[in-house]
């Protein structure tokens, strides 16, 4: 597929000016392109990509998306209760027209990364590609070369943002467009905030989104990301996140995935200070030809940290799901607690789930556990519910919904949970 790599080299040259426009990312972009040319597209023979074929991405000649959608989408009728005074809306990767940057008196900066880069380049450049240091794979490198927009959130020391910040992203382009969003979240020492991300696409969408989120948690900082992914149509999405945690910080990431033609979540967490906690949870409900690949990499680089991964999947139709959980406990990372769990319910003969735990442990005083299961609906429970008068369909929906929602038991945002629960219910009843 050398010709496709040449194609992206040309695409880069062709859009050079457009990409630059004073964003001071030249070096990062050049390095990104170089890394992309060197690494190319990951192939199925690579262990980390065996559950995610990139062929359909290589097949198309994606254009760099410059179609800026100015209209505000009517999200809020669908998301009752999630409205926030801190909201940023993206359409096809571009920040909506009427919101660019917001600065509050206490020093919080929130806005389009493009706008923040133009106004405070040093604030952004201090963090850009500092968590995604090596451009781990071709797609990460591609994002570094082509990143156009995204959101930037800076929370100064000791500041707690009271309302959850809402970020919505919707894809709806009927041509092959490439979207590379770059999001950066910075929480200084003792800062805290919650971000609710709603990601969606429409049935006719053909855009491919390859996004990166870099997060930096200062000492004792607390970051919660509650994310709902609901991609319709032929949308292809690769979402990579890189999070670095300083001592005492707490990172909680909860992802609800409702379908998705072809979706990959790569979640990298590096615990760089002692007494950190990373809590990564995901629930995915798939049917028809949905394909979702979840990958979590947790690097216990320091002693006395805890991490937890809990993923649950429900698979129907011909859907394909995967969970891969890596835990690396380095030699000096004594007194590490790392737990990992992936349970799945497979409802059809043709659905497929692959679950892969990887524990790499070099320290000797650690508690690590992993568990995985693939099962079917509990028939005794079904009988019990039906014997009380619930229809077969309702009983099934109740049991499956409860199964998937269990991963979100620690989520304190009840509005988010309500929206997710409703989405899961709708997806299950559709079958």
């Amino acid at each position: 597929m050398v010709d496709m790599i040449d194609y992206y080299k040309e695409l880069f040259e062709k859009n050079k000016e457009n990409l630059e426009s004073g964003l001071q990312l030249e070096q990062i972009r050049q390095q990104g392109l170089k890394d992309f040319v060197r690494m190319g597209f990951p192939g199925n023979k690579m262990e980390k990509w065996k559950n995610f074929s990139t062929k359909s991405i290589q097949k198309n000649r994606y254009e760099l998306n410059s179609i800026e959608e100015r209209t505000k989408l009517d999200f809020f009728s669908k998301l009752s209760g999630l409205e926030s005074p801190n909201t940023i809306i993206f359409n096809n990767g571009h920040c909506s027209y009427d919101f660019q940057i917001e600065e509050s008196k206490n020093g919080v900066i929130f806005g389009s990364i493009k706008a923040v880069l133009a106004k405070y380049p040093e604030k952004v450049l201090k963090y850009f590609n500092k968590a995604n240091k090596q451009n781990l794979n071709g797609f990460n490198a591609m994002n570094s070369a082509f990143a156009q927009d995204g959101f930037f959130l800076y929370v100064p020391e000791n500041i707690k943002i009271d309302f959850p910040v809402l970020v919505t992203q919707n894809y709806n382009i009927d041509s092959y467009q490439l979207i590379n969003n770059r999001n950066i979240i910075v929480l200084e020492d003792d800062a805290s905030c919650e971000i609710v991300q709603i990601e969606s696409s429409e049935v006719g969408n053909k855009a491919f989104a390859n996004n990166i989120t870099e997060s930096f948690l200062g000492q004792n900082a607390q970051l919660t990301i509650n994310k709902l992914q609901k991609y319709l149509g032929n949308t292809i999405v690769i979402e990579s996140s890189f999070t670095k945690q300083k001592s005492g910080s707490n990172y909680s990431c909860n992802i609800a995935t409702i379908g998705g033609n072809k979706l990959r979540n790569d979640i990298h967490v590096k615990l760089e200070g002692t007494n950190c906690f990373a809590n990564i949870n995901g629930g995915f409900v798939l049917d028809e030809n949905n394909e979702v690949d979840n990958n979590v990499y947790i690097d216990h680089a320091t002693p006395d940290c805890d991490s937890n991964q809990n993923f649950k999947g429900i698979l129907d139709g011909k859907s394909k799901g995967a969970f891969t959980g890596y835990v690396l406990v380095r030699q000096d990372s004594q007194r590490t607690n790392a737990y990992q769990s992936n349970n799945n319910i497979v409802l059809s003969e043709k659905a497929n789930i692959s679950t892969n735990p990887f524990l790499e442990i070099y320290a000797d005083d650690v508690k690590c556990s992993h568990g995985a299961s693939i099962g079917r609906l509990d028939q005794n429970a079904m009988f019990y519910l039906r014997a009380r008068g619930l229809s077969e369909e309702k009983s099934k929906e109740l049991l499956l919904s409860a199964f998937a929602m269990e991963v979100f038991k620690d989520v304190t945002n009840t509005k988010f949970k309500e929206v997710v629960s409703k989405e899961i219910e709708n997806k299950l009843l559709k079958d």
Partner: protein
Amino acid sequence: MELIKIRDLHVNIDNKEILKGFDLNINRGEVHAIMGPNGTGKSTLASALVGKPDYEVTKGEVIFKGKDLLEMEIEERALEGLFLAFQYPVEIPGVSMINFMKTVVDARREYRKEEPISPVDFLKLVKRSSELVGISDKMKGRAVNEGFSGGEKKKNEIFQMAMLQPDLAILDELDSGLDIDSLKQVAEAINKLRNENNAFLIITHYQRLLDYIVPDFVHIMNDGKIVKSGDKDLAKELESKGYDDIMGLN
């Protein structure tokens, strides 16, 4: 007035015949007790009546409220007013008791073409039923049966029965897992729920439960059918003489 009529019921599990021609009539307002040694088909009767999968009816008929019960789906039987208090209630992780009950109550109302219950009426019903059975608020907030003790699970069955007010309640080994105080409390609740329109079928090994819930009829089952019927004194006789004697096996 006749509530249920069971005629010549034969039931197989895994191709093995367990019920071998079971007959019983229950009228509204009556309490029947079925006793008998282990493995005679008492629980099979309960399971077959509520429609548990794998319980294959090979012969016979069951008419419930004038309708063919065996033709109905599991949920239809429940919606028609049949209730089984399970011997081993099932844990349903993640489904809260309250949501479960609200869903079930509304399913019944929908079946009867009634509007969903109002939140106020629902809470009143919950309060009345839980006080009657003696279950705590804490239990109501938890997932259905999850982490409940054996006794709590049994109380929860009767709580659900009080909520749903079925025409016919089958109580399968209600006394197992209940301590004596809980047993008295649950029995008292059942006595309060007894009226001229409903009926109870109590399945038990022991006379003990029948000291608190006094049956109108006692039947002794052996090898898949009723071998002897009588009034409440039959249970006492059984307790003193044992099954073999009563059934004339000695």
